[in-house]
């Protein structure tokens, strides 16, 4: 399917701007759980981008794909896969309806993130509608481009609060020749020690997780390289582990089957504050730099503990989510408000989705 509804979307934003109507931006609605709940969003008019779809350009040897924001993520991944390539940041979809626009707006990345970069690292350019209904393009379809401020990357993770994504251009990478997973039974401290020792050597690690005294390491690369790395790291070889990593990425592991609030804590990989030692409510990813935690502990306590170690905690699922994202320092909040004002002066794009002030 290939449909351009950018004019329609633009008209709706222009009208909302003139009438000062809040807009709730929706792609595939696969990540509706993510972000703050806000009364303004409940009463907002829906701006549905999912009809704006189609791959606009893709040439495998250029390592770049450009698609309309409503293009299903699955369609893009299928196309890349057919050409031996991939979105290296391994975005979670959470539902079949997930779109590439929503993927970038949320800037969520999967197990490979710690080793190759996040969604924002692969974003080369985008076309947006700002809060005044103006269509503009930033960045482009080339790897190196330093003309103007990096407005494209600013859109990644902004949850639509600065602009409606119309098109995105992403860098893609070749798939790796061989993928193998090794498993170790150890304590969380041992797991982190192993990971830190490995991460200082050029091993082809592409994912890691730790939960319930089990450390898993995924190795990806040239066949000989992966085989050699397997001998170096040791452990038990796991067959058909791709399903495990897929379920981890999509939150389909048993760990995620919970009604408890699920926290996503991002911090330095060697921090011992949020430790999984004898606590099956924790799951580590990204070599320890990302920790999922199921807990009823109040948000202030979790976020304060994260702030104390210079990290941040997001209330990811299962909550009222009024305090979803970690509070910003007064200075940063001022800059955020100014930026919001500069892109969306009447505060009509996803108001309150990220922070109450934005």
């Amino acid at each position, binding site marked *: 399917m290939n449909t351009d509804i950018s004019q329609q979307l633009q008209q709706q934003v222009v009208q909302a701007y003139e009438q000062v109507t809040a807009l709730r931006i929706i792609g595939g609605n696969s990540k509706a759980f993510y972000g703050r709940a806000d009364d303004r969003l409940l009463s907002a008019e829906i701006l549905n981008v999912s009809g704006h779809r189609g791959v606009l350009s893709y040439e495998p040897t250029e*390592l*770049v794909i450009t698609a309309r924001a409503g293009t299903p993520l699955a369609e893009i991944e299928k196309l890349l896969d057919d050409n*031996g390539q991939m979105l290296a940041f391994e975005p979670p979809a959470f539902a079949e309806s997930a779109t590439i626009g929503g993927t970038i707006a949320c800037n969520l990345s999967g197990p490979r993130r710690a080793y190759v*970069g*996040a969604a924002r690292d692969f974003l080369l350019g985008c076309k947006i509608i700002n809060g005044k209904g*103006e269509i*503009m*393009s*930033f960045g*482009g379809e*080339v*790897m*190196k*481009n*330093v*003309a*103007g*401020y*990096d*407005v494209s*990357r*600013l859109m990644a*993770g*902004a949850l639509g609060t*600065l602009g409606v994504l119309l098109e995105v251009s992403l860098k893609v990478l*070749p798939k790796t020749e061989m993928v193998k997973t090794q498993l170790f039974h150890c304590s969380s401290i041992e797991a982190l020690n192993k990971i*830190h020792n490995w*991460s*200082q*050597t*050029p*091993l*082809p690690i592409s994912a890691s997780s730790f939960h319930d005294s089990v450390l898993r390491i995924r190795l990806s690369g*040239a066949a*000989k*390289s992966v*085989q*050699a790395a397997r001998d170096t790291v040791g452990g038990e070889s796991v067959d058909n582990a791709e399903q495990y990593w897929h379920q981890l990425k999509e939150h389909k592991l048993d760990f995620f089957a919970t009604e408890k609030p699920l926290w996503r804590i*991002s911090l*330095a*990989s*060697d921090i011992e504050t949020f430790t999984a030692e004898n606590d099956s409510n924790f799951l580590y990813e*990204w070599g320890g730099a*990302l920790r999922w935690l199921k807990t009823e502990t109040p948000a202030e306590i979790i976020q304060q503990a994260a702030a104390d170690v*210079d*990290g*941040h905690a*997001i209330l990811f699922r299962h909550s009222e989510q009024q305090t979803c*994202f970690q509070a*910003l*320092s007064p*200075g*940063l909040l001022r*800059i*955020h408000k*100014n*930026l919001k004002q*500069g*892109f969306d002066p009447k505060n009509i794009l996803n108001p309150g989705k*990220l922070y109450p002030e934005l």
Partner: protein
Amino acid sequence: MYSSENIESKISKAALIQALQDFIAAESVLFDEEDLKPYECDGLSAYRAIPLIVVLPETIEQVQRVLTLCHENMIPVVARGAGTGLSGGALPHEQGVLLSLAKFKNILHIDPNRRIARVQPGVRNLAISQAVDQFGLYYAPDPSSQIACTIGGNVAENSGGVHCLKYGLTVHNIQQLKIITIDGELLTIGGSGLDSAGYDLLALMTGSEGMLGVIVEVTVKLLPKPERAQVLLAAFEDVVNAGEAVGNIIAAGIIPAGLEMMDRLAIQAAEDFVHAGYPLDAEAILLCELDGTNEEVSEHVSKVRGVLKQSGATEVRTAKDDAERLTFWAGRKAAFPAVGRLSPDYYCMDGTIPRKQLPQVLKAMADLSKEYELRVANVFHAGDGNLHPLILYDANIPGELERTEEFGGKILELCIKVGGTITGEHGVGMEKINQMCVQFNSLELQQFHAVKAAFDPLGLLNPGKAVPTLHRCAEFGAMHIHRGELPFPELERF
């Protein structure tokens, strides 16, 4: 020439000097013509301006006080690292303070577990890799000026290098910044995790050319040094074949650590200069560096050899040891000064194009070269599409500089036309400010100004750089028709 935006300050030069000397040692506040002279330009020496005052603070508190003072008194501030930039980003403002970060040259902390280094902005790019070498780590972005350029400047320009395709630019390799806003507030952007709360201000700051804040600390990400690196050198009788070979390597599923192309004139210049053993009868050579584990490199070297031969390479050499690898690279790394020996002056361009457009762009450049009767040597980061055409000219021949400027402008427009950009890694600065009007429309430029205003509503940081005013674009539009009148710089190095 560059006319700085006129800003009416509220304080006399003498009073400002006195106020600065209240908290900065007298020898670190420069105001005599002879002391100011060394700061009149950066790596783009065609543009020169003497600043009102140069200050060299040593502490974050001093930087805060300098900015607060300037903010209160409407004094423009231009931050400067090593001054190696090629686009005039650190060109002083005649009514302003030039804020040198040269005294911030300490590596504050190295953490091998977290693979990060926390450094002051005046630390040289190469010094970071040298300091962390003992842990088997390195800092990946390697601009050609890495021996001299500072990390603060690298962040301000989002510097690249020859390894960008695989390892990314500065924006991909930093984790946290400490900046001071124009009103003197210290902000921490990013965190100790791989991401942080809120908007991606880390990306916004990177490449912002000193327009949004002054960088006073940088936390860089480090990578384990590859087990092995190997370089292949391939010669081609036709530039088009060389371009196709690049696509074929990538189609084979290989991302080289570096992939550089040089054309005949650049090959000859480099060979005359450093005797790297380049084949002089080739129309183009490709240098392809592969790195990774031992096994991976062996596998990829044999694959790439095959691809290069199938793509029509007349000769493929593999460096037999590290010494030969460095010799292969020596020619490429010396390409700019080598070309400088062919001609009294040269002008370096920095456009990026989609790689598939290379044959078309090279053909168009060859045609323009004939039309303008000026030789062009091409050095090309082939993997990521970043072109550095070097136009050879002699400023002493009347009219030749003007022809060069016109030729350069045509090349930049060509880059935009084929879907590329006017600057891949050198930045806009003063140099390409007019071409910004070609690449971006007025809505986009206004949006850039809104970003600037979010940080610096009074416009005191690096005024007149990076993003043109709409007024300036309107003027340029008129000049656009009479291109010969355009002021354009010469380049002296790299």
